[in-house]
């Protein structure tokens, strides 16, 4: 039984169908990449899975439970955490205190939340930033704070929405290593949307490709990048010659 099962999920905004009957699964020890050109509906799908948007059709199952009717805060309590493309932490709280807010999902004790926050800051290599305000950190470290905050809620599955956006090559490299460690050492399943292909390819066991709100391919990263439909989606019809056969 998959940890996350997305079954025929659709999402309409007025007359626009942003997600059209999309199905896929994420296993308990899997890393799955969700890719597609701009406007393919990746973030919308993310928001549907995380309970941020109500779906227009279909169902989402998490850990054997139908979470379709649940709100985002309820989904989080079940162990499905997410990050946002733009992380805005509370300006009234220090870095460590922001991470504590994540830990408060599981405990009412400040002492325990503080310990949990320090543990994750340490694991993510930003223990020295605990007493600072988020705005005092460079972007790459801010992203780690966002990660720490989500991780402190003790999730089974972490949804990462474009965590590599705005990072340079070296920083992306560091992030890939970090996420690999999170997956291996902490046993978390990951579902990531990403524009930075190096990252998706390096991390994902499986890739799901969206285009114009539909799923057009799914498989191992190495296979998917050779899929003519995927190439067409990324490059456009006019660049793909007739032998690939999608006129």
């Amino acid at each position: 039984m998959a940890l996350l099962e997305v079954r025929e999920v659709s999402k309409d905004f007025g007359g626009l169908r942003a997600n059209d009957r999309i199905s896929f699964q994420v296993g308990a020890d899997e890393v799955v990449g969700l890719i597609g050109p701009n406007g393919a509906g990746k973030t919308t799908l993310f928001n549907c899975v995380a309970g941020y948007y109500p779906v227009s059709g279909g169902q989402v199952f998490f850990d054997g439970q139908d979470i379709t009717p649940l709100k985002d805060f309820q989904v989080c309590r079940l162990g499905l955490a997410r990050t946002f493309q733009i992380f805005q932490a509370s300006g009234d709280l220090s870095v460590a205190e922001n991470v504590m807010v994540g830990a408060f999902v599981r405990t009412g004790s400040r002492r325990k939340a503080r310990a949990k926050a320090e543990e994750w800051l340490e694991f993510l290599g930003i223990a020295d930033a605990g007493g600072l305000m988020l705005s005092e950190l460079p972007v790459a470290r801010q992203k780690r704070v966002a990660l720490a905050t989500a991780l402190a809620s003790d999730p089974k599955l972490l949804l990462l929405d474009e965590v590599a956006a705005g990072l340079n090559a070296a920083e992306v490299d560091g992030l890939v290593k970090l996420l690999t460690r999170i997956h291996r050492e902490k046993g978390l399943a990951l579902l990531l949307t990403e524009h930075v292909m190096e990252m998706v390819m390096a991390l994902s066991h499986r890739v799901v490709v969206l285009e114009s709100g539909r799923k057009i391919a799914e498989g191992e990263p190495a296979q998917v990048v050779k899929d003519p439909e995927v190439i067409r989606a990324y490059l456009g019809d006019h660049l793909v010659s007739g032998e690939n056969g999608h006129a």
Partner: protein
Amino acid sequence: MEAIRNAFDFSDFPRLDMTVAGAALVFLLAFPALPHSSFAMATMIQFLMFSLYGMGWNTIGGYAGQVDLGKAQYVGIGAYTTAVMMVRWDVPFWVSMPVGMALAVGWSFIIGYPLFKLKGHYFAIATIATSLVLKDLFEVWDFVGGAKGLELPLRGNFPDFLYLQFREDYYYFYILLAMFLAGLLFINGFRHSRLGYQLRAIKDNEDVARSLGINVHWCKIKAYAVATAYVAMVGSFHACYNFNIEPEDTMSLDLSVLIAMMAMLGGAGSLWGPIIGASILVPMRSYLGSWLGGQAGLAGLDLVIYGAIIMLIAAVQPRGVWGMVEAVRGRRRGV
């Protein structure tokens, strides 16, 4: 146990702050023994009352960042509960005060549930409206004395600790000071509690807060209830202290605005902010008000000055006096 430790944990403030706070406490404890006019004593009592109002307001208005301009309705509920129970059934203050707090908190759930579906300015306007409606209802409700209000019966045996009737103001002062200290410790524990942290997360980004398992709507309602308990408690005290209450002085918009303004002037969302705000505005209001009232044609000018203060806070330092202190230190800590 941890809640008690949290309440006494001031470790995130530098020693200087605690020294100043300690000195202020010594001054407060000694104040009745120092030479003072009865006007100064009345002003001190007002200062303590408004500090408590502000501390309460700060939970929802400061930590959670929801500008509430309708706190007076709960002052009224507290004051009227105590007054009605004392006038009609001879119930002592120490019984009617918790009843008043419970009634006010109950009412705050009813009001808060729909109110917190609104955001920003709409929320602020709605809080004003609900408060004014309640005031209008009380003005035509004969059971509570209508617009004339209620007069508390004098029991004659001073000092009466059960019914809070004293000839000398220092009794009121010390009882209120005890409430003030208890209220301060409670807020200190509150800001260290799970709810306290969650509210500060809600303030800046509700989406992120919800993604961290926080039921934003319910958290706001809970903070609103805490704020309500504070102002209702002081409202009960106000009834005994004044011997006479009417809708106009317990539930007016002026009072709601003053409560919010003191906390904002001192520093919304900080522990000391409401106290600092009250220590500036209450004496100013007392002395300016009485001085202007004595000058022909100048009465009401104090309202103009409050308006100017609000504009100044908004333009110069939205985090109030405490924000300035932090700016000077170059650090923004100890919220």
